[in-house]
């Protein structure tokens, strides 16, 4: 592990550390080079997603018809004047479109994980805390969702509700996000349940019970905060899965509606010109890759930082 190199300073720093476990974990995180790289990539993606339209050289739907015409009605190559990454076949600036795509990916990352937390954590907590029949029922429910062919279920949901108000919200994206979340919560539910089961037997929970703290308060105050580490890791590592799912759906033509384009649909468009204009596929592919790598490294780093088994061993 990359943290090995900094073992000694960490140990020496320890005596003064009355710092909480979260700060300790954060310290471990920033000493991990790959995690820091992940953090940087994720921050860049967030920055592009939030401020993308402000820093984009052109509005994403604007067509530079003159430039295209001068180029014989073909997409401009990268490093053209005014269009640093070139344009697509309609003369739209590729960098601007990629930045708008970043906004879509960032929204995916947040909305999907929100749906997953919103369903997965309560179901898992409920199941683990009450146990018995409730638990059995909940776990069988997750079995059903687990067996659903997920990408296919998302496609079906997206097509089924495409015409409704809900399906039109956020340029057709909200529906896709919710659909991705609906098939993704099972992992988090199972994880939360496992944490609940383990923590339920601990002495501090027994103590809380003994002094008459209500069930709700025990779950909210003691179980969830203590079981949070692995859940945070699972959620972070779920982000690249969601981004990938959205890109895949966009590639087959489901989700965001033109003129907006997600990275997946940019690749689908660019594929038609790949032999003469490979940049139309390569750049979106690079953006997707950086986003996936960023969240994966960050998630791995968080796991190492939050894993109590490693605590003190480093």
């Amino acid at each position: 592990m990359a943290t090995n190199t900094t073992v000694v300073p960490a140990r020496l720093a320890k005596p003064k550390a009355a710092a909480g476990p979260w700060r300790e974990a954060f310290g471990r995180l920033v000493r991990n080079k790959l995690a820091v790289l992940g953090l940087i990539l994720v921050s860049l993606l967030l920055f592009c997603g939030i401020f993308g339209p402000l820093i984009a050289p052109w509005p994403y739907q604007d067509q530079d018809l003159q430039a295209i015409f001068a180029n014989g009605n073909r997409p401009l190559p990268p490093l053209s004047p005014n269009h640093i990454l070139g344009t697509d076949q309609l003369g739209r600036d590729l960098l601007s479109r990629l930045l708008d795509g970043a906004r879509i990916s960032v929204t995916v990352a947040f909305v999907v994980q929100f749906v997953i937390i919103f369903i997965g954590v309560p179901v898992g907590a409920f199941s683990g805390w009450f146990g018995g029949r409730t638990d059995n029922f909940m776990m069988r429910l997750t079995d059903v969702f687990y067996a659903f062919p997920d990408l296919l279920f998302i496609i079906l949901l997206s097509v089924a509700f495409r015409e409704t108000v809900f399906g039109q919200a956020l340029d057709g994206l909200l529906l896709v996000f919710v659909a991705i979340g609906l098939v993704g919560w099972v992992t988090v539910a199972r994880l939360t349940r496992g944490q609940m089961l383990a923590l339920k037997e601990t002495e501090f929970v027994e103590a809380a019970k003994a002094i008459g703290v209500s069930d709700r308060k025990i779950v909210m105050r003691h179980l969830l905060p203590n079981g949070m580490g692995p859940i945070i890791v699972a959620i972070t590592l779920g982000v690249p899965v969601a981004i990938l799912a959205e890109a895949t759906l966009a590639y087959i033509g489901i989700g965001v509606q033109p003129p907006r384009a997600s990275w997946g649909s940019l690749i689908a468009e660019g594929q038609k010109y790949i032999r003469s204009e490979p940049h139309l596929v390569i750049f979106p592919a690079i953006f997707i890759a950086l986003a996936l790598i960023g969240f994966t490294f960050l998630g791995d780093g968080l796991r190492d930082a939050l894993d109590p088994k490693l605590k003190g061993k480093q």
Partner: protein
Amino acid sequence: MIAYIGRRLLWIIPVLFTVSVITFFLMHSVPGGPWDREKHLPQGTQDRLNAQYGLDQPIYVQYARWAGAFIQGDLGPSYRFQDRTVNDIVADGIWTTVQLGVMAFLLAVAVGIPLGIFAALGHNKAPDYIATSISIIGIATPVFVLGILMTVFFAVQLGWFPTGGWKGPQYWVLPTIALAGFPIAIIARYTRASMLEVTRKDYIRTAQSKGLRDQAVVSRHMIRNALIPVVTILGPTLAFLVTGSFIIERIFGIPGVGQYYITAIGTRDYSLLMAMTMLYAFAVAFLNVVVDVLYAYIDPRIRYS
């Protein structure tokens, strides 16, 4: 053990039932019907077709009919390909899809596990960085990007392989590699983490201190124990490969069943869509049981009752 397997297999039935109900009702709530084509059919014709296929019945009656036929192994007529039954369509394409999925799976295991072991044995040294870089590429490249790039490079530019089709072994190479890219990365990462975990275990120290050769420690103690958790991800991986091949089938023009899923939704081919969903749900549920049983078999610490 037999009772456990039996119970788990029986449990697939309610899972499939729930999946079928949800899909059936969702599918029928999609606006439009199988007769909306490029050429608009007159209302009278549509009504007659609906009556002929029972689509004018209440939805629960339609479901009951579908379920009754399904239990007897009749997947119904295809609305889109009217000269063929869904049974024919599935029978034609299923083995191609299974073959592609299984080949990609074998490739992923054959490359991913050694890659992970290699990385762990050279932990924080060159082998680790090389293997980790390979798996990062696998994780960061969506299957469709890999498919497109491989077609352009190996089929169009170099001309080593055909760009599409499924007529012989040379047609299998590119789709199999493209499909296996992501699982290779996942399996390698998992194997590496599991190997590193095992390295810290007391029994490894025991084995080393009793003077066992390094090679024997690695092959007899480390790898065998490290692979146990890896088995848990193989089930979902195989399911992912068998069900997730539709994009690769599209890119390479492979005549499997995966391609039908998207077209079936687009054309409202209800019976074909149901057949595909049930097939996939069964594959996922069944493979999960297989993995759990296999897990108990290779790890003597686990006992099911």
